[in-house]
């Protein structure tokens, strides 16, 4: 049986690594955030499977903590403090910014 759990966990780990393609490609930050959310759930599942495969019941607690805090990053993503109210147009890729005036000088 534990062989089966382990194989299932390995399969799920594989889906995480595949899903990384979405994080790398994007294109929007929403896509990346969604991928992270899916990884969190997959991670919980892997932990539950490993707890049976390795016969370590403490891993269920680890999974519980992951499940409990899975939403924090997403909430931070949506409700950052400095976030301006919805702008008129979506922000598009900006040119690289110019050095600011307050750049300090080394005396060397």
């Amino acid at each position, binding site marked *: 049986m534990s062989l089966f759990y382990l194989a299932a966990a390995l399969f799920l780990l594989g889906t995480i690594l595949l899903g990384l393609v979405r994080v790398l490609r994007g294109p929007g930050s929403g896509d990346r955030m969604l991928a992270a959310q899916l990884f969190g759930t997959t991670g919980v599942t892997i932990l539950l499977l490993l707890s049976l495969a390795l016969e370590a019941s403490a891993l269920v607690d680890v999974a519980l903590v992951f499940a409990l805090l899975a939403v924090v990053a997403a909430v931070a993503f949506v409700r950052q403090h400095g976030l301006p109210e919805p702008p008129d147009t979506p922000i598009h890729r900006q040119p690289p910014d110019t050095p600011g005036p*307050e750049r*300090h000088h*080394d*005396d*060397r």
Partner: protein
Amino acid sequence: MIPANPEWLPAGSAGLVALSLGVAVLATAWPRQAHRIGLLGALAVTAWVLGLSATFLHAGPDPETAATRVALGGWEAPLGLMLQLDGLSMTLLVLTAVVALATSLYSLGYVHDRIERRQFWPLWLWLWAGLNMLFLSGDAFNLYITLEVVSLSAVALVAFTGTAAAVSGAVRYLLVNILGSLSFLMGVVLLFGEHGVLDLVLLEARTEAGPTERMAAVLMTAGLMLKAALFPLHVWLAPAHGSAPAPVSAVLSGLVVTGSFYLILRLWMGVFAPLATPAFGILVGLLGVGALIWGSLQALRAGRLKSIVAYSTVAQFGYLLVAFPLMLVDPGAWRVVVFFAVVHALAKASVFLAAGTLQHAAGHDRLAELGAVLRARPRTVFALGLAGVSLMGLPFTGGFIAKYLLLEAGLGTVLAGSLIGVLWVLAIAGGGLLAAAYVLRMVAPAFHRGRRDAGEAVSPWMDWVPLALATVAALAGLAGVLTLNTLALTPGAP
């Protein structure tokens, strides 16, 4: 007078840790009174350290039994962790107490803002407690944690003024520190994996020149060199000092950097002693020569007072590296090295405090425009000059004694038939000349004709403390025999 009892030493060491931690915690919880708590705490900790050193000197004429080991929580190593007090740590504790007391008094004048005071004192007291704990620690993992306490509070203090330049310097310092700490920790892990113990004494008994020890030695030494700003890993030092408050610069160059160097010395005298080969010694010595030349040249080129002093730290630490090959030939030379580090710390701290007074008065520290203030503040310039003379190593100062002893060790190497010894002697002698050049650069404007302008008023603390500390540094030569005798009470060291 109450006779000193050697049985007080264990409680005295644990008590020192508890006292300095208690002061820090109290100041953290009650920031409104932090400066008063800090002043009382500084006096109490200094008095405690001096009492401890008196007891120590009375107690242990026998170097093999002179080390006091304290099992914290009653658990002996290898299960628990031990504090260790010997001649080396005692010397550095006294040095720390003197410099830290001076810094605390200076800070009473320097950090006068009611709100800044509340932020400054807790961090500073944590830093001091961290240094005390570092010098007392006898356990490899505990050393890592005390190093973290020291570095983290030092980083916070560098960023303390909150300006962009200060924060930028602090971030660099933080990254360097993290890298150094992780490297050190990795070495600790390797040693633990190989030997299964963390206690330094137990480790020392088990180490031999194997691949694990070599790797651990490389990792730990590199990490500590990074933290000690030893050439060529010194690049963070000047930016970190550039905008740090003066008392912080003094402690950073005087004590924090010395703490990392202490650890390098302690490890190579103990755990890594079987690994030291002549070729390795020569490599370190060459790095030292490089540090002397490069640091001095940068100090001669720098345009700001504090940068000059910061680069002089890089240069002066070159001596400590040059001393390494000497120690391989004459094992007893390590005591001279420590004495040199002590004198350097005292002198460097007073130079930074004096520079801080000048900077505060003038509102900047650009050397070219500092003449008027320099001419109007003879007391501070005298402190700067006196400490500078000690850095140069002119006769009768502590620096002179230290360099004389170093030169003696160097000549001993030459006489022992080592050709490269000539290079070390030349470096030690030539380094003094370079130091003279940059010290004179700092004080020379005071002797030019021109306008005098005392600048902004400074508190009496800022006026007198640098002078007092510079005097201590200059007179430290008188304590040379005492220091060397104290250091002799280090078991296991020649």
